[in-house]
C-alpha cells in the first residue's frame, strides 16, 4: 500500500464543502434537497452528520462524490474542495478514479451496492487490483486481511461467500472492508454501523480511529446513532430539511445544544438506566418523540422550516429564514431563539 502519507499542514482541511446546493426535479418542479451546506474535515478528523430521516444526509454525501443519481438530482451550486481540487468541476473519468481510491464511500444499503453474482472476495479484490495494481493473489490476500480487520469470523472461508450467504451485519462490514481496501484519504460512511451490535461497532470504530491516527484518513460519518457520534466525532453537523441547522464541536453539541431541533433529538434517546428498574414492557411508558413530522420538501413552511414543531418559535420565525451564524464559542446555529445554555 502507498505508505507515503500526503499530509498537508493539519490546518488545511482535506475536504472543504462550501454552499453545496442540490436540486431534486420532481413533477411539480425542482425542490432544494441540499441547500447551502458547508462543512470541512481535516486530515485525521471525523465529522458527524445527523438529522431526521429524509433531511438530505445521503444526498449530501452522494453529491460530494458526484454519485447522486442525475436525474433527478442536480448539483446547482457550491464547491467541494478535496486535496485542493473542486470535485464538482472534475471530469467524470477522473472522479471515478479518485472514488475507488482516494475517496471511498460506504453506502447506506449494502444490498444495493454489492453485486449478487460475485463473491465478496472478488468484489473487494477488484478495486485493489484496479487502483493499486496488485496481482490477483495479492489482491485476494488483501481481501482476506480486510475481512479479518472488520471482524468477520473465518475470513479465509468467507472470502468465497456470495452476499446472500452473509448476515446483514456481515454484508455491512464487507462494504466497509471494500471501502478501506485501497487506503483512502477520505472515507464517507453513510450509516455504516446500523446493523452492527455494540461489540462489533466498537471494533469498527477502533479500526477507523487507528487508520485515522496512522494515516491521517479523514472521515465523514453519517449516523443517527448519537452514541456513535459521542464516541467518534470531533465536529457535528445537524441537518434539517436540506439545511445545516447547527454545527458544533461534539462536546458542546451534547452539553448545550443551541438549536431546538438538536435539543429535541437529544431528548429522544432512550436510556437504559431510566428504563431499567421500572419493570416490564413498555406498555405504560412512551418514548419522547419530537412532535409532528419533517415537512415535505415540496411544501416547506415560510421562514424557519422547523417552526411548526418548535416550542420556542417567535413571530419572526414565520417570516425570516434564520441564517447559520455563530451563537457561542465554536458553535453555529440557524435559529432566531436558540436554547439558552443550561
Amino acid at each position, binding site marked *: 500500500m502507498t505508505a507515503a502519507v500526503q499530509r498537508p499542514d493539519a490546518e488545511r482541511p482535506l475536504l472543504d464543502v462550501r454552499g453545496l446546493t442540490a436540486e431534486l426535479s420532481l413533477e411539480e418542479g425542482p425542490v432544494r434537497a441540499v441547500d447551502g451546506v458547508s462543512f470541512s474535515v481535516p486530515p485525521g478528523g471525523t465529522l458527524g452528520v445527523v*438529522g*431526521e*430521516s*429524509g433531511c438530505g*444526509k*445521503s444526498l449530501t454525501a452522494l453529491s460530494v462524490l458526484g454519485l447522486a443519481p442525475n436525474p*433527478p438530482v442536480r448539483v446547482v451550486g457550491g464547491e467541494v474542495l478535496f486535496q485542493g481540487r473542486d470535485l464538482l468541476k472534475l471530469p467524470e473519468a477522473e472522479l471515478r478514479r479518485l472514488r475507488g481510491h482516494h475517496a471511498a464511500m460506504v453506502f*447506506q*444499503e*449494502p*444490498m*444495493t451496492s454489492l453485486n449478487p453474482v460475485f463473491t465478496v472476495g472478488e468484489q473487494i479484490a477488484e478495486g485493489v487490483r484496479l487502483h493499486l495494481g496488485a496481482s490477483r493473489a495479492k489482491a485476494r490476500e488483501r481481501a482476506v486481511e480486510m475481512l479479518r480487520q472488520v471482524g468477520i*469470523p*473465518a475470513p479465509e*472461508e468467507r472470502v*468465497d461467500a456470495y452476499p446472500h*450467504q*452473509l*448476515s*446483514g*451485519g*456481515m454484508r455491512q462490514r464487507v462494504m466497509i472492508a471494500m471501502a478501506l481496501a485501497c487506503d483512502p484519504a477520505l472515507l464517507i460512511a453513510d450509516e455504516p454501523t*446500523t*446493523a*452492527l*451490535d*455494540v*461489540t*462489533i*461497532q*466498537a471494533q469498527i470504530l477502533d479500526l477507523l480511529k487507528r487508520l485515522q491516527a496512522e494515516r491521517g484518513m479523514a472521515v465523514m460519518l453519517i449516523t*443517527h446513532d*448519537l*452514541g*456513535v*457520534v*459521542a*464516541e467518534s466525532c470531533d465536529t457535528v453537523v445537524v441537518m434539517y430539511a436540506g439545511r445545516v441547522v447547527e454545527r458544533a464541536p461534539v*462536546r458542546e453539541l*451534547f*452539553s448545550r445544544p443551541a438549536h431546538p431541533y438538536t435539543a429535541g*433529538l*437529544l431528548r*429522544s*434517546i*432512550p436510556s*437504559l438506566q431510566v*428504563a*431499567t428498574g421500572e419493570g*416490564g*414492557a*413498555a406498555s405504560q*411508558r*412512551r*418514548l*419522547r418523540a419530537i412532535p409532528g*413530522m*419533517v415537512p*415535505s420538501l*415540496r411544501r416547506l413552511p415560510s421562514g424557519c422550516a422547523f417552526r411548526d414543531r418548535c416550542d420556542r418559535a417567535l413571530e419572526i420565525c414565520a417570516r425570516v429564514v434564520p441564517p447559520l451564524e455563530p451563537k457561542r464559542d465554536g458553535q453555529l446555529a440557524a435559529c432566531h431563539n436558540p436554547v439558552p445554555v443550561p
Partner: protein
Amino acid sequence: MSSGPLLQVRDLKVHFPVRGGLLGRVRGAVKAVDGVGFDVVRGETLGLVGESGCGKSTLGRALLRLVEPTAGSIRFDGQELTGQSQRRLRPLRRRMQLVFQDPYASLNPRMTVREILGEPFAIHGLARERGEREREVSALVDAMGLPREALERYPHEFSGGQRQRIGIARAIALRPDLVVADEPISALDVSIQAQIVNLLVDLQRERGLTYVFIAHDLKIVEYVSTRVAVMYLGRIVELAPAAELYRRPRHPYTQALLSSVPVPDPGRARTRLLVPGEPPSPLNPPSGCAFHPRCPHVMERCRRESPPLYPLGGGHTAACFLVEGDSREVTAAPASGGDAGVLAQPPSPG
C-alpha cells in the same frame, strides 16, 4: 383462534450447506440455527438479541417458513408449519408477516407505494371496494409519518429511513396476528424510532398483535419486549422476562452484552467492557459450550459438554453450568408459579 401460545417452536434447526472445491461438493454446514425451542404468547413481544451472524434473521425467517427449516417443529396457532406446501400455508400467510432487515431489497422497485401497500389487500381479496382500500392505504402512510404524496412515488425516491417505514406499513397492512420484525428501526434516527416504537406498542394494545422483535439495540429491546431471548451461535443461551433479564442476567454472554451498551456522552471515556475475544465461526463451532473460548468463568467441563437451558424460576432460563445448582433448587421446590409458556428445552447436543 385457539387458546395456548400463538407460536410454539421445538428443536428448530436451519443448516446451510457449504460447498467448495471445483466440483462444488458439500464440505460442511453453517449451522445458522441449531436446536432452538421457545413459545411466543399471544399479545407479547419477544425480543431477540445477539451478535451479528448469530442466526437472528435466519430464525425469524424460518418462523414464517420463508427459509426451509432443516429439522424441528413450528406451530402457529396450533397448526404445524413445517412440511406444509406453500399452497396450504397461504391462508396463514396473511396472519404472519415479516419486516425485512434490508428494506430496499424487499420492495418492488417498479411499484408505487400505493401499489405496494395495496397489493396485500389484493392478494388476499380484502378491502375490495376502491374507497375502502384507499382509506386503509392512506391510514397506513399517516401512521408511518409519511406525507400522502408518498403514495405516488417509487421506492428509490425515498431515503433509507423512509423506505424502512414503507416496509413496516406493508407488514401491518392486513392486521396480522404475528409480526416478525427484523431490525425494524435500526435505520431510523432516534426521534422517528421513538415514533415507530410508540406506534408498534399502540397497535399491539389495540389489536392484540404479537411481535418477535429482532434488534441489536439493547435499550430499544428492553423498552418494547415482554420477554427477551439471547442468541449465541445458533442457540438461545438465555430467556427471561425483560426486566428480570436486564436486572439479573445469568449467562456470562448476556452479562458481557449488557455491559457493552454505549453511553451517549462525549465527556466520558469509553468504560464499556466489550465481549472479549473473537466471535466464533459457525463453520467450525467450538466444542462444548460455544461461548467457552470467550467466557471469563470457563471450567474444564465447559469445553466438553454443552449446557442445556436450565430453568431458574419465574420464566427465566439460562444455558450455563454456573446456574445448574440454582436450577436444582428451583426445580426441587414445588411448582414455581406461572411460567409464561417458557420451556427449558435443552438444545439437543451437537
